[in-house]
Protein backbone atom coordinates (compact mmCIF):
# COMPACT_ATOMS: atom_id res chain seq x y z
CA UNK A 1 0.00 0.00 0.00
CA UNK A 2 2.13 2.86 -1.23
CA UNK A 3 -0.71 5.29 -1.50
CA UNK A 4 -2.16 5.13 1.98
CA UNK A 5 -5.89 4.62 2.20
CA UNK A 6 -6.41 7.61 4.46
CA UNK A 7 -4.81 9.92 1.90
CA UNK A 8 -7.05 8.69 -0.86
CA UNK A 9 -10.18 8.91 1.25
CA UNK A 10 -9.36 12.48 2.30
CA UNK A 11 -8.64 13.32 -1.30
CA UNK A 12 -11.94 11.85 -2.34
CA UNK A 13 -13.86 13.73 0.29
CA UNK A 14 -12.21 16.98 -0.72
CA UNK A 15 -13.13 16.46 -4.34
CA UNK A 16 -16.57 15.01 -3.88
CA UNK A 17 -18.79 18.13 -3.71
CA UNK A 18 -21.06 17.62 -6.64
CA UNK A 19 -19.66 18.37 -10.02
CA UNK A 20 -17.09 16.43 -11.94
CA UNK A 21 -13.96 18.42 -12.37
CA UNK A 22 -12.92 17.43 -15.84
CA UNK A 23 -9.39 16.20 -16.28
CA UNK A 24 -8.32 17.76 -13.04
CA UNK A 25 -4.79 16.76 -12.26
CA UNK A 26 -5.47 15.44 -8.84
CA UNK A 27 -2.60 13.01 -9.14
CA UNK A 28 0.24 14.53 -11.13
CA UNK A 29 1.40 12.21 -13.89
CA UNK A 30 4.48 10.42 -12.59
CA UNK A 31 8.08 10.72 -13.75
CA UNK A 32 9.13 7.17 -14.37
CA UNK A 33 12.60 6.02 -13.38
CA UNK A 34 12.40 2.69 -15.12
CA UNK A 35 12.43 4.16 -18.62
CA UNK A 36 8.73 3.35 -19.07
CA UNK A 37 7.35 4.75 -22.31
CA UNK A 38 3.74 5.89 -22.59
CA UNK A 39 1.80 3.53 -24.86
CA UNK A 40 0.61 4.93 -28.16
CA UNK A 41 -3.05 5.85 -28.51
CA UNK A 42 -4.66 3.88 -31.30
CA UNK A 43 -7.13 5.88 -33.42
CA UNK A 44 -8.47 3.76 -36.26
CA UNK A 45 -9.03 5.83 -39.39
CA UNK A 46 -12.56 6.19 -40.74
CA UNK A 47 -13.54 4.86 -44.14
CA UNK A 48 -11.41 6.70 -46.69
CA UNK A 49 -12.94 9.71 -48.43
CA UNK A 50 -12.28 8.19 -51.84
CA UNK A 51 -14.85 5.47 -51.11
CA UNK A 52 -17.48 8.13 -50.49
CA UNK A 53 -16.90 9.43 -53.99
CA UNK A 54 -16.97 5.85 -55.21
CA UNK A 55 -20.47 5.53 -53.75
CA UNK A 56 -21.57 8.60 -55.69
CA UNK A 57 -20.04 7.12 -58.83
CA UNK A 58 -21.87 3.83 -58.29
CA UNK A 59 -25.09 5.78 -57.81
CA UNK A 60 -24.50 7.71 -61.03
CA UNK A 61 -23.69 4.59 -63.05
CA UNK A 62 -26.64 2.69 -61.56
CA UNK A 63 -29.01 5.55 -62.44
CA UNK A 64 -27.70 5.78 -65.99
CA UNK A 65 -27.89 2.01 -66.43
CA UNK A 66 -31.40 1.97 -64.97
CA UNK A 67 -32.52 4.66 -67.42
CA UNK A 68 -31.05 2.66 -70.31
CA UNK A 69 -32.58 -0.64 -69.20
CA UNK A 70 -35.99 0.89 -68.58
CA UNK A 71 -36.37 3.13 -71.59
CA UNK A 72 -34.23 1.53 -74.29
CA UNK A 73 -33.68 -2.12 -73.46
CA UNK A 74 -37.12 -2.55 -71.89
CA UNK A 75 -36.10 -5.68 -70.03
CA UNK A 76 -37.73 -6.46 -66.71
CA UNK A 77 -35.15 -9.15 -66.04
CA UNK A 78 -32.24 -6.72 -66.44
CA UNK A 79 -34.01 -4.11 -64.30
CA UNK A 80 -34.52 -6.75 -61.61
CA UNK A 81 -30.85 -7.72 -61.76
CA UNK A 82 -29.77 -4.10 -61.31
CA UNK A 83 -32.27 -3.77 -58.48
CA UNK A 84 -30.74 -6.76 -56.69
CA UNK A 85 -27.28 -5.26 -57.17
CA UNK A 86 -28.45 -1.98 -55.63
CA UNK A 87 -30.05 -3.85 -52.75
CA UNK A 88 -26.75 -5.58 -52.06
CA UNK A 89 -24.53 -2.54 -52.59
CA UNK A 90 -26.50 0.37 -51.11
CA UNK A 91 -28.42 -1.82 -48.70
CA UNK A 92 -26.41 -4.65 -47.25
CA UNK A 93 -22.91 -3.43 -48.12
CA UNK A 94 -23.29 0.30 -47.38
CA UNK A 95 -25.86 -0.45 -44.63
CA UNK A 96 -28.41 1.95 -46.09
CA UNK A 97 -26.57 5.18 -45.19
CA UNK A 98 -26.46 7.67 -46.78
CA UNK A 99 -29.57 7.38 -48.89
CA UNK A 100 -31.30 10.10 -50.94
CA UNK A 101 -34.44 9.76 -48.81
CA UNK A 102 -32.58 10.69 -45.64
CA UNK A 103 -30.52 13.30 -47.50
CA UNK A 104 -33.69 15.41 -47.76
CA UNK A 105 -33.12 16.27 -44.11
CA UNK A 106 -29.42 17.06 -44.52
CA UNK A 107 -30.25 19.47 -47.32
CA UNK A 108 -33.00 21.08 -45.22
CA UNK A 109 -30.72 21.40 -42.23
CA UNK A 110 -27.99 22.92 -44.39
CA UNK A 111 -30.45 25.52 -45.71
CA UNK A 112 -31.67 26.54 -42.26
CA UNK A 113 -28.55 26.05 -40.15
CA UNK A 114 -25.48 27.83 -41.49
CA UNK A 115 -23.27 25.97 -39.01
CA UNK A 116 -24.01 22.65 -40.63
CA UNK A 117 -21.63 21.96 -43.50
CA UNK A 118 -23.33 19.44 -45.74
CA UNK A 119 -20.85 16.99 -47.29
CA UNK A 120 -20.72 17.26 -51.08
CA UNK A 121 -21.40 13.54 -51.41
CA UNK A 122 -24.66 13.87 -49.46
CA UNK A 123 -25.74 16.79 -51.64
CA UNK A 124 -25.03 14.70 -54.74
CA UNK A 125 -26.96 11.76 -53.32
CA UNK A 126 -29.92 14.08 -52.93
CA UNK A 127 -29.68 15.71 -56.35
CA UNK A 128 -28.62 12.97 -58.77
CA UNK A 129 -31.85 10.92 -58.57
CA UNK A 130 -33.86 14.15 -58.94
CA UNK A 131 -32.03 15.16 -62.10
CA UNK A 132 -32.43 11.68 -63.55
CA UNK A 133 -36.13 11.77 -62.72
CA UNK A 134 -36.48 15.07 -64.58
CA UNK A 135 -35.20 13.41 -67.73
CA UNK A 136 -36.14 9.74 -67.49
CA UNK A 137 -38.87 9.30 -64.85
CA UNK A 138 -38.56 7.43 -61.59
CA UNK A 139 -35.65 5.22 -62.60
CA UNK A 140 -34.21 5.63 -59.11
CA UNK A 141 -37.25 3.99 -57.53
CA UNK A 142 -37.23 1.20 -60.08
CA UNK A 143 -33.73 -0.15 -59.75
CA UNK A 144 -31.47 1.91 -57.50
CA UNK A 145 -33.25 2.55 -54.21
CA UNK A 146 -32.46 -0.24 -51.73
CA UNK A 147 -35.67 0.40 -49.81
CA UNK A 148 -37.70 -0.04 -52.96
CA UNK A 149 -35.67 -3.09 -53.93
CA UNK A 150 -36.26 -5.01 -50.72
CA UNK A 151 -40.02 -4.44 -51.05
CA UNK A 152 -40.05 -5.26 -54.73
CA UNK A 153 -38.21 -8.50 -54.05
CA UNK A 154 -40.81 -9.76 -51.57
CA UNK A 155 -43.86 -8.92 -53.70
CA UNK A 156 -45.20 -12.40 -54.48
CA UNK A 157 -48.96 -12.07 -54.78
CA UNK A 158 -49.98 -8.57 -55.75
CA UNK A 159 -53.47 -7.47 -54.80
CA UNK A 160 -55.05 -4.55 -56.56
CA UNK A 161 -56.19 -1.77 -54.28
CA UNK A 162 -59.16 0.43 -55.08
CA UNK A 163 -57.89 3.63 -56.62
CA UNK A 164 -59.23 5.83 -53.86
CA UNK A 165 -57.06 3.97 -51.32
CA UNK A 166 -54.02 4.87 -53.38
CA UNK A 167 -55.06 8.51 -53.42
CA UNK A 168 -56.04 8.80 -49.78
CA UNK A 169 -53.32 6.75 -48.09
CA UNK A 170 -50.78 8.27 -50.47
CA UNK A 171 -51.37 11.63 -48.77
CA UNK A 172 -49.48 10.27 -45.76
CA UNK A 173 -46.23 10.64 -47.68
CA UNK A 174 -46.82 14.38 -48.07
CA UNK A 175 -47.46 14.77 -44.36
CA UNK A 176 -44.35 12.72 -43.64
CA UNK A 177 -42.25 14.90 -45.97
CA UNK A 178 -43.61 18.09 -44.44
CA UNK A 179 -42.99 16.89 -40.90
CA UNK A 180 -39.50 15.66 -41.76
CA UNK A 181 -38.63 19.04 -43.25
CA UNK A 182 -40.05 20.88 -40.23
CA UNK A 183 -38.13 18.76 -37.74
CA UNK A 184 -34.91 18.93 -39.77
CA UNK A 185 -35.19 22.69 -40.29
CA UNK A 186 -35.61 23.31 -36.58
CA UNK A 187 -32.72 20.98 -35.82
CA UNK A 188 -34.97 18.71 -33.77
CA UNK A 189 -34.60 15.30 -35.31
CA UNK A 190 -34.10 13.36 -38.52
CA UNK A 191 -37.34 11.41 -38.34
CA UNK A 192 -36.87 9.76 -41.74
CA UNK A 193 -33.73 8.12 -40.43
CA UNK A 194 -35.19 7.32 -37.03
CA UNK A 195 -38.13 5.55 -38.63
CA UNK A 196 -36.34 4.05 -41.61
CA UNK A 197 -38.16 0.70 -41.63
CA UNK A 198 -35.67 -1.43 -43.52
CA UNK A 199 -32.35 -0.20 -42.25
CA UNK A 200 -32.27 -2.81 -39.49
CA UNK A 201 -32.55 -5.52 -42.14
CA UNK A 202 -29.61 -3.99 -43.99
CA UNK A 203 -27.53 -3.84 -40.83
CA UNK A 204 -28.85 -7.19 -39.60
CA UNK A 205 -29.28 -5.56 -36.20
CA UNK A 206 -31.44 -2.86 -34.71
CA UNK A 207 -34.14 -1.87 -32.29
CA UNK A 208 -37.22 -4.04 -31.82
CA UNK A 209 -39.71 -1.30 -32.78
CA UNK A 210 -38.11 -0.66 -36.11
CA UNK A 211 -37.77 -4.38 -36.70
CA UNK A 212 -41.52 -4.77 -36.13
CA UNK A 213 -42.29 -1.78 -38.37
CA UNK A 214 -40.05 -3.09 -41.16
CA UNK A 215 -41.30 -6.64 -40.72
CA UNK A 216 -44.94 -5.62 -40.98
CA UNK A 217 -44.26 -3.46 -44.01
CA UNK A 218 -42.58 -6.43 -45.68
CA UNK A 219 -45.50 -8.69 -44.70
CA UNK A 220 -47.95 -6.20 -46.19
CA UNK A 221 -45.57 -5.93 -49.11
CA UNK A 222 -46.14 -9.60 -49.93
CA UNK A 223 -49.57 -8.61 -51.23
CA UNK A 224 -49.62 -4.84 -51.60
CA UNK A 225 -46.79 -3.75 -53.84
CA UNK A 226 -44.18 -1.51 -52.23
CA UNK A 227 -46.26 0.01 -49.43
CA UNK A 228 -43.46 2.29 -48.20
CA UNK A 229 -42.77 3.71 -51.67
CA UNK A 230 -46.40 4.36 -52.46
CA UNK A 231 -47.80 5.54 -49.16
CA UNK A 232 -44.94 6.81 -47.02
CA UNK A 233 -41.75 7.64 -48.86
CA UNK A 234 -41.11 11.38 -48.43
CA UNK A 235 -38.50 11.47 -51.18
CA UNK A 236 -41.00 9.73 -53.44
CA UNK A 237 -43.20 12.81 -53.11
CA UNK A 238 -40.54 14.99 -54.71
CA UNK A 239 -39.90 12.31 -57.32
CA UNK A 240 -43.63 12.22 -58.12
CA UNK A 241 -43.59 15.95 -58.82
CA UNK A 242 -40.49 15.72 -60.94
CA UNK A 243 -41.70 12.65 -62.75
CA UNK A 244 -44.79 14.53 -63.92
CA UNK A 245 -42.59 16.84 -65.97
CA UNK A 246 -39.98 14.31 -67.01
CA UNK A 247 -38.73 14.44 -70.57
CA UNK A 248 -39.08 10.73 -71.19
CA UNK A 249 -41.16 8.20 -69.36
CA UNK A 250 -42.21 4.60 -69.32
CA UNK A 251 -44.63 3.67 -72.05
CA UNK A 252 -46.38 0.34 -71.69
CA UNK A 253 -46.17 -0.34 -75.36
CA UNK A 254 -43.13 0.36 -77.51
CA UNK A 255 -45.36 1.50 -80.33
CA UNK A 256 -49.06 2.28 -80.68
CA UNK A 257 -51.49 0.93 -78.15
CA UNK A 258 -54.15 -1.33 -79.64
CA UNK A 259 -56.26 -1.28 -76.46
CA UNK A 260 -56.11 -5.04 -76.11
CA UNK A 261 -56.48 -4.75 -72.31
CA UNK A 262 -53.79 -7.37 -71.73
CA UNK A 263 -51.69 -5.04 -69.56
CA UNK A 264 -54.66 -3.92 -67.48
CA UNK A 265 -53.88 -6.18 -64.52
CA UNK A 266 -50.11 -6.20 -64.88
CA UNK A 267 -49.21 -3.29 -62.62
CA UNK A 268 -48.99 -4.23 -58.93
CA UNK A 269 -48.77 -0.57 -57.99
CA UNK A 270 -52.00 0.58 -59.60
CA UNK A 271 -50.15 2.94 -61.91
CA UNK A 272 -51.77 1.96 -65.20
CA UNK A 273 -54.48 4.31 -66.33
CA UNK A 274 -57.17 2.85 -68.48
CA UNK A 275 -58.64 4.64 -71.50
CA UNK A 276 -61.64 6.75 -70.66
CA UNK A 277 -65.03 5.46 -71.65
CA UNK A 278 -68.02 7.46 -72.79
CA UNK A 279 -69.82 6.96 -69.46
CA UNK A 280 -66.90 8.57 -67.71
CA UNK A 281 -68.03 11.88 -69.10
CA UNK A 282 -71.69 11.54 -68.24
CA UNK A 283 -71.94 14.44 -65.76
CA UNK A 284 -72.52 17.60 -67.74
CA UNK A 285 -69.41 19.78 -68.12
CA UNK A 286 -71.15 22.72 -66.45
CA UNK A 287 -71.55 20.85 -63.20
CA UNK A 288 -67.95 19.76 -63.41
CA UNK A 289 -66.80 23.31 -63.92
CA UNK A 290 -68.78 24.39 -60.89
CA UNK A 291 -67.25 21.76 -58.64
CA UNK A 292 -63.82 22.76 -59.91
CA UNK A 293 -64.45 26.39 -59.02
CA UNK A 294 -65.77 25.46 -55.59
CA UNK A 295 -62.70 23.35 -54.92
CA UNK A 296 -60.49 26.19 -56.12
CA UNK A 297 -62.15 28.53 -53.64
CA UNK A 298 -61.86 25.90 -50.93
CA UNK A 299 -58.11 25.53 -51.52
CA UNK A 300 -57.04 28.56 -49.45
CA UNK A 301 -59.60 27.54 -46.84
CA UNK A 302 -57.96 24.13 -46.60
CA UNK A 303 -54.56 25.78 -46.32
CA UNK A 304 -55.61 28.21 -43.61
CA UNK A 305 -57.41 25.50 -41.71
CA UNK A 306 -54.39 23.21 -41.93
CA UNK A 307 -51.99 25.95 -40.92
CA UNK A 308 -54.11 27.02 -38.02
CA UNK A 309 -54.60 23.52 -36.64
CA UNK A 310 -50.93 22.48 -36.92
CA UNK A 311 -49.63 25.71 -35.41
CA UNK A 312 -52.04 25.15 -32.52
CA UNK A 313 -50.18 21.98 -31.60
CA UNK A 314 -46.76 23.62 -31.73
CA UNK A 315 -46.16 22.88 -28.05
CA UNK A 316 -46.27 19.09 -28.29
CA UNK A 317 -44.48 19.25 -31.65
CA UNK A 318 -41.66 21.36 -30.24
CA UNK A 319 -41.01 18.66 -27.62
CA UNK A 320 -39.21 16.84 -30.44
CA UNK A 321 -36.42 19.35 -29.85
CA UNK A 322 -33.92 18.49 -27.14
CA UNK A 323 -33.60 22.03 -25.85
CA UNK A 324 -37.36 22.38 -25.37
CA UNK A 325 -37.55 19.03 -23.57
CA UNK A 326 -34.69 20.09 -21.31
CA UNK A 327 -36.26 23.49 -20.63
CA UNK A 328 -39.57 21.86 -19.69
CA UNK A 329 -37.78 19.51 -17.35
CA UNK A 330 -35.68 22.26 -15.80
CA UNK A 331 -38.80 24.31 -15.24
CA UNK A 332 -40.47 21.44 -13.40
CA UNK A 333 -37.39 20.92 -11.26
CA UNK A 334 -36.75 24.59 -10.55
CA UNK A 335 -40.34 25.23 -9.53
CA UNK A 336 -40.29 22.18 -7.27
CA UNK A 337 -42.99 20.31 -9.18
CA UNK A 338 -40.72 17.27 -9.29
CA UNK A 339 -38.08 16.32 -6.78
CA UNK A 340 -35.73 14.04 -8.68
CA UNK A 341 -33.37 15.04 -11.45
CA UNK A 342 -32.58 13.43 -14.79
CA UNK A 343 -29.28 12.83 -16.57
CA UNK A 344 -30.18 15.71 -18.86
CA UNK A 345 -30.86 18.23 -16.12
CA UNK A 346 -27.79 17.11 -14.16
CA UNK A 347 -25.63 17.56 -17.24
CA UNK A 348 -27.14 21.00 -17.83
CA UNK A 349 -26.41 22.10 -14.26
CA UNK A 350 -22.81 20.92 -14.63
CA UNK A 351 -22.31 23.35 -17.48
CA UNK A 352 -23.25 26.24 -15.18
CA UNK A 353 -25.22 28.01 -17.89
CA UNK A 354 -28.07 30.23 -16.66
CA UNK A 355 -31.46 28.57 -16.83
CA UNK A 356 -33.08 31.74 -18.18
CA UNK A 357 -30.94 31.50 -21.28
CA UNK A 358 -32.21 27.93 -21.74
CA UNK A 359 -35.81 29.13 -21.39
CA UNK A 360 -35.14 31.88 -23.93
CA UNK A 361 -33.77 29.39 -26.44
CA UNK A 362 -36.72 27.06 -25.86
CA UNK A 363 -39.20 29.91 -26.40
CA UNK A 364 -37.43 30.81 -29.62
CA UNK A 365 -37.62 27.22 -30.88
CA UNK A 366 -41.29 27.09 -29.93
CA UNK A 367 -41.89 30.23 -31.99
CA UNK A 368 -40.15 28.54 -34.92
CA UNK A 369 -42.53 25.63 -34.50
CA UNK A 370 -45.44 28.01 -34.36
CA UNK A 371 -44.84 29.53 -37.76
CA UNK A 372 -43.36 26.27 -39.04
CA UNK A 373 -46.70 24.73 -38.10
CA UNK A 374 -48.48 27.31 -40.27
CA UNK A 375 -46.25 26.37 -43.19
CA UNK A 376 -46.63 22.62 -42.60
CA UNK A 377 -50.39 22.87 -42.20
CA UNK A 378 -50.66 25.14 -45.22
CA UNK A 379 -48.67 22.62 -47.20
CA UNK A 380 -50.92 19.75 -46.11
CA UNK A 381 -53.97 21.83 -47.00
CA UNK A 382 -52.49 22.64 -50.38
CA UNK A 383 -51.81 18.96 -51.02
CA UNK A 384 -55.32 17.89 -50.05
CA UNK A 385 -56.87 20.71 -52.07
CA UNK A 386 -54.61 20.04 -55.01
CA UNK A 387 -55.41 16.35 -54.92
CA UNK A 388 -59.15 16.98 -54.98
CA UNK A 389 -58.72 19.47 -57.81
CA UNK A 390 -56.69 16.91 -59.72
CA UNK A 391 -59.42 14.32 -59.21
CA UNK A 392 -62.14 16.78 -60.25
CA UNK A 393 -60.53 17.30 -63.62
CA UNK A 394 -61.28 14.56 -66.13
CA UNK A 395 -58.86 13.96 -68.86
CA UNK A 396 -59.54 12.01 -72.00
CA UNK A 397 -57.29 9.04 -72.54
CA UNK A 398 -57.40 7.03 -75.70
CA UNK A 399 -55.00 4.30 -74.65
CA UNK A 400 -53.48 2.50 -71.70
CA UNK A 401 -50.74 4.55 -70.22
CA UNK A 402 -48.56 4.61 -67.14
CA UNK A 403 -49.45 7.27 -64.60
CA UNK A 404 -46.67 9.81 -64.85
CA UNK A 405 -46.38 10.34 -61.13
CA UNK A 406 -47.14 6.95 -59.72
CA UNK A 407 -45.28 4.72 -62.19
CA UNK A 408 -42.24 3.25 -60.46
CA UNK A 409 -40.74 2.22 -63.79
CA UNK A 410 -40.32 -1.39 -62.69
CA UNK A 411 -40.96 -2.65 -66.22
CA UNK A 412 -43.42 -5.39 -65.24
CA UNK A 413 -45.98 -4.33 -67.82
CA UNK A 414 -43.64 -4.53 -70.81
CA UNK A 415 -43.98 -8.25 -71.42
CA UNK A 416 -47.78 -8.09 -71.25
CA UNK A 417 -47.96 -6.00 -74.39
CA UNK A 418 -48.42 -8.07 -77.54
CA UNK A 419 -46.75 -5.37 -79.60
CA UNK A 420 -43.71 -5.62 -77.40
CA UNK A 421 -43.71 -9.38 -77.86
CA UNK A 422 -44.02 -9.12 -81.60
CA UNK A 423 -41.23 -6.58 -81.73
CA UNK A 424 -39.11 -8.89 -79.66
CA UNK A 425 -39.92 -11.79 -82.00
CA UNK A 426 -39.02 -9.74 -85.05
CA UNK A 427 -35.70 -8.92 -83.54
CA UNK A 428 -35.16 -12.59 -82.88
CA UNK A 429 -36.00 -13.50 -86.48
CA UNK A 430 -33.55 -10.95 -87.75
CA UNK A 431 -30.76 -12.17 -85.56
CA UNK A 432 -31.42 -15.74 -86.61
Amino acid at each position, binding site marked *: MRQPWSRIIIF*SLLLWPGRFA*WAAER*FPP*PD*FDSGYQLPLTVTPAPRAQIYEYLDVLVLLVALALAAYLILKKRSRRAIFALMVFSLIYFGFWRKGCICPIGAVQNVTLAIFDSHYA*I*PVTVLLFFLLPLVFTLFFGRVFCAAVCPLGAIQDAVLVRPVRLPEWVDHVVGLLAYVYLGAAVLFAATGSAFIICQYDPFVSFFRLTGGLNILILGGSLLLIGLFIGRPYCRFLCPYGVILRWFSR*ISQQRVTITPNDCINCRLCEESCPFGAIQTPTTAEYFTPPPDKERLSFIILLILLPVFMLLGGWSISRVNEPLSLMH*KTVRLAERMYLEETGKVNDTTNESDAFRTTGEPVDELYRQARQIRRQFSWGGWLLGGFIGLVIGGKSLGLAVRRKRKEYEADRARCLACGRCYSYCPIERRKFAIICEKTI
Partner: protein
Amino acid sequence: MEKDKKNPNRRDFLVNTLRGGCLLGAGGLVGVLGRGSSGQKMLWQIDPYKCIACGNCATYCVLEESAVKCMHAFALCGYCELCTGFFEPQPQSLDSGAENQLCPTGAIKRRFVEDPYFEYTIDEKLCIGCGKCVKGCNAFGNGSLFLQVRHDRCLNCNECAIAVACPSGAFTRVPADKPYLLKGTDKTT
Protein backbone atom coordinates in the same frame (compact mmCIF):
# COMPACT_ATOMS: atom_id res chain seq x y z
CA MET B 1 -42.25 13.57 -83.36
CA GLU B 2 -40.44 16.03 -85.62
CA LYS B 3 -43.51 18.13 -86.00
CA ASP B 4 -44.05 18.17 -82.26
CA LYS B 5 -40.58 19.46 -81.65
CA LYS B 6 -41.02 22.32 -84.07
CA ASN B 7 -44.44 23.37 -82.84
CA PRO B 8 -44.63 22.58 -79.19
CA ASN B 9 -48.11 22.89 -77.82
CA ARG B 10 -48.92 24.81 -74.67
CA ARG B 11 -48.62 21.81 -72.39
CA ASP B 12 -45.18 20.85 -73.74
CA PHE B 13 -44.01 24.41 -73.38
CA LEU B 14 -45.18 24.56 -69.79
CA VAL B 15 -43.57 21.24 -68.91
CA ASN B 16 -40.29 22.20 -70.55
CA THR B 17 -40.23 25.51 -68.71
CA LEU B 18 -40.96 23.79 -65.42
CA ARG B 19 -38.22 21.26 -66.03
CA GLY B 20 -35.77 24.02 -66.81
CA GLY B 21 -36.85 25.77 -63.64
CA CYS B 22 -36.26 22.64 -61.60
CA LEU B 23 -32.81 22.20 -63.11
CA LEU B 24 -32.03 25.82 -62.35
CA GLY B 25 -33.28 25.26 -58.82
CA ALA B 26 -31.01 22.24 -58.44
CA GLY B 27 -28.12 24.30 -59.75
CA GLY B 28 -29.01 27.08 -57.35
CA LEU B 29 -29.09 24.63 -54.47
CA VAL B 30 -25.60 23.44 -55.40
CA GLY B 31 -24.50 27.06 -55.62
CA VAL B 32 -25.95 28.08 -52.27
CA LEU B 33 -25.13 24.96 -50.28
CA GLY B 34 -21.95 24.20 -52.21
CA ARG B 35 -20.22 27.24 -50.74
CA GLY B 36 -20.97 26.25 -47.17
CA SER B 37 -20.56 22.56 -47.83
CA SER B 38 -17.73 20.41 -46.80
CA GLY B 39 -15.67 18.40 -49.25
CA GLN B 40 -15.23 15.87 -46.52
CA LYS B 41 -17.78 13.68 -44.97
CA MET B 42 -18.79 14.38 -41.41
CA LEU B 43 -18.47 11.80 -38.67
CA TRP B 44 -19.99 11.45 -35.24
CA GLN B 45 -17.75 11.96 -32.25
CA ILE B 46 -18.05 12.50 -28.51
CA ASP B 47 -16.77 15.66 -26.93
CA PRO B 48 -15.12 14.10 -23.85
CA TYR B 49 -15.45 17.35 -21.91
CA LYS B 50 -19.24 17.27 -22.29
CA CYS B 51 -19.69 13.52 -21.81
CA ILE B 52 -21.20 12.54 -18.47
CA ALA B 53 -20.64 8.80 -18.97
CA CYS B 54 -24.33 8.02 -18.51
CA GLY B 55 -24.05 4.62 -20.15
CA ASN B 56 -26.36 5.30 -23.11
CA CYS B 57 -23.52 4.66 -25.55
CA ALA B 58 -23.51 0.99 -24.62
CA THR B 59 -27.23 0.52 -25.24
CA TYR B 60 -28.40 2.98 -27.90
CA CYS B 61 -25.91 2.23 -30.70
CA VAL B 62 -27.54 0.46 -33.63
CA LEU B 63 -24.74 -2.07 -33.47
CA GLU B 64 -25.13 -5.01 -31.13
CA GLU B 65 -21.75 -4.11 -29.67
CA SER B 66 -21.49 -0.35 -29.49
CA ALA B 67 -19.13 1.58 -31.76
CA VAL B 68 -18.22 3.65 -28.70
CA LYS B 69 -15.29 2.39 -26.68
CA CYS B 70 -13.24 3.69 -23.83
CA MET B 71 -9.87 5.27 -24.56
CA HIS B 72 -7.05 6.17 -22.26
CA ALA B 73 -5.06 9.39 -22.31
CA PHE B 74 -1.89 8.00 -20.77
CA ALA B 75 -0.24 11.44 -20.55
CA LEU B 76 -3.01 12.52 -18.18
CA CYS B 77 -3.12 9.34 -16.09
CA GLY B 78 -1.81 9.40 -12.55
CA TYR B 79 -0.95 5.68 -12.69
CA CYS B 80 -2.57 5.34 -9.25
CA GLU B 81 -2.38 2.09 -7.38
CA LEU B 82 -5.96 2.64 -6.29
CA CYS B 83 -7.50 3.57 -9.58
CA THR B 84 -11.11 4.68 -9.19
CA GLY B 85 -11.71 3.83 -12.82
CA PHE B 86 -10.54 0.30 -12.29
CA PHE B 87 -11.71 -0.63 -8.80
CA GLU B 88 -15.12 -0.91 -7.26
CA PRO B 89 -15.83 1.86 -4.72
CA GLN B 90 -14.88 -0.43 -1.82
CA PRO B 91 -12.59 -3.11 -3.20
CA GLN B 92 -11.82 -6.05 -1.00
CA SER B 93 -8.22 -5.95 -2.07
CA LEU B 94 -6.20 -3.99 -4.61
CA ASP B 95 -5.75 -6.74 -7.14
CA SER B 96 -7.38 -7.58 -10.43
CA GLY B 97 -9.84 -10.05 -8.96
CA ALA B 98 -13.14 -9.83 -10.80
CA GLU B 99 -15.02 -8.90 -7.63
CA ASN B 100 -12.86 -5.79 -7.24
CA GLN B 101 -13.23 -4.52 -10.78
CA LEU B 102 -15.61 -1.80 -11.87
CA CYS B 103 -15.57 -2.87 -15.51
CA PRO B 104 -18.38 -5.36 -16.16
CA THR B 105 -16.39 -7.12 -18.87
CA GLY B 106 -12.93 -6.92 -17.36
CA ALA B 107 -11.72 -4.88 -20.29
CA ILE B 108 -9.21 -2.81 -18.32
CA LYS B 109 -5.85 -4.50 -17.90
CA ARG B 110 -3.81 -3.48 -14.85
CA ARG B 111 -0.05 -3.90 -15.02
CA PHE B 112 2.65 -3.01 -12.50
CA VAL B 113 5.12 -0.50 -13.95
CA GLU B 114 7.31 0.63 -11.09
CA ASP B 115 6.82 1.46 -7.47
CA PRO B 116 4.10 2.81 -6.85
CA TYR B 117 2.70 3.06 -10.33
CA PHE B 118 0.33 0.86 -12.30
CA GLU B 119 -0.54 1.08 -15.96
CA TYR B 120 -4.14 0.67 -17.10
CA THR B 121 -4.82 -0.27 -20.71
CA ILE B 122 -8.13 -0.99 -22.41
CA ASP B 123 -8.76 -4.23 -24.21
CA GLU B 124 -10.98 -2.85 -26.93
CA LYS B 125 -12.35 -6.22 -27.91
CA LEU B 126 -13.92 -6.53 -24.47
CA CYS B 127 -14.97 -2.90 -23.92
CA ILE B 128 -18.69 -2.26 -24.39
CA GLY B 129 -18.56 1.51 -23.98
CA CYS B 130 -20.65 1.61 -20.81
CA GLY B 131 -18.49 4.38 -19.34
CA LYS B 132 -18.48 3.06 -15.77
CA CYS B 133 -14.70 3.47 -15.60
CA VAL B 134 -14.96 6.93 -17.14
CA LYS B 135 -17.36 7.98 -14.44
CA GLY B 136 -15.09 6.61 -11.73
CA CYS B 137 -12.00 8.22 -13.19
CA ASN B 138 -13.72 11.58 -13.62
CA ALA B 139 -15.11 11.53 -10.09
CA PHE B 140 -11.94 10.88 -8.16
CA GLY B 141 -9.08 10.66 -10.64
CA ASN B 142 -7.52 12.73 -13.36
CA GLY B 143 -10.22 12.01 -15.91
CA SER B 144 -7.82 10.28 -18.25
CA LEU B 145 -10.35 7.62 -19.27
CA PHE B 146 -12.87 8.88 -21.83
CA LEU B 147 -15.29 7.56 -24.40
CA GLN B 148 -14.84 7.92 -28.15
CA VAL B 149 -16.60 6.69 -31.25
CA ARG B 150 -14.27 4.19 -32.88
CA HIS B 151 -14.37 4.82 -36.59
CA ASP B 152 -13.37 1.31 -37.56
CA ARG B 153 -16.69 0.20 -36.04
CA CYS B 154 -19.03 3.18 -36.53
CA LEU B 155 -21.50 2.85 -39.41
CA ASN B 156 -21.78 6.64 -39.52
CA CYS B 157 -25.58 6.67 -39.55
CA ASN B 158 -27.05 9.86 -40.91
CA GLU B 159 -28.53 10.51 -37.50
CA CYS B 160 -26.62 8.73 -34.77
CA ALA B 161 -28.99 6.85 -32.47
CA ILE B 162 -26.75 7.51 -29.48
CA ALA B 163 -26.60 11.22 -30.30
CA VAL B 164 -30.40 11.28 -30.08
CA ALA B 165 -30.25 9.65 -26.66
CA CYS B 166 -27.23 11.60 -25.35
CA PRO B 167 -28.38 13.63 -22.33
CA SER B 168 -25.52 16.12 -22.34
CA GLY B 169 -25.33 16.91 -26.05
CA ALA B 170 -21.81 15.53 -26.20
CA PHE B 171 -22.22 14.07 -29.69
CA THR B 172 -21.14 16.35 -32.50
CA ARG B 173 -20.38 16.00 -36.17
CA VAL B 174 -16.68 16.37 -36.86
CA PRO B 175 -14.89 16.59 -40.22
CA ALA B 176 -13.28 13.35 -41.37
CA ASP B 177 -9.73 14.71 -41.19
CA LYS B 178 -10.11 15.29 -37.44
CA PRO B 179 -12.13 12.25 -36.51
CA TYR B 180 -11.25 12.07 -32.81
CA LEU B 181 -11.66 14.53 -29.95
CA LEU B 182 -8.92 13.32 -27.67
CA LYS B 183 -7.98 14.26 -24.17
CA GLY B 184 -4.36 14.75 -23.33
CA THR B 185 -1.38 14.98 -25.61
CA ASP B 186 -0.67 11.35 -26.35
CA LYS B 187 1.02 10.30 -29.54
CA THR B 188 -1.43 8.58 -31.85
CA THR B 189 -1.05 5.97 -34.50
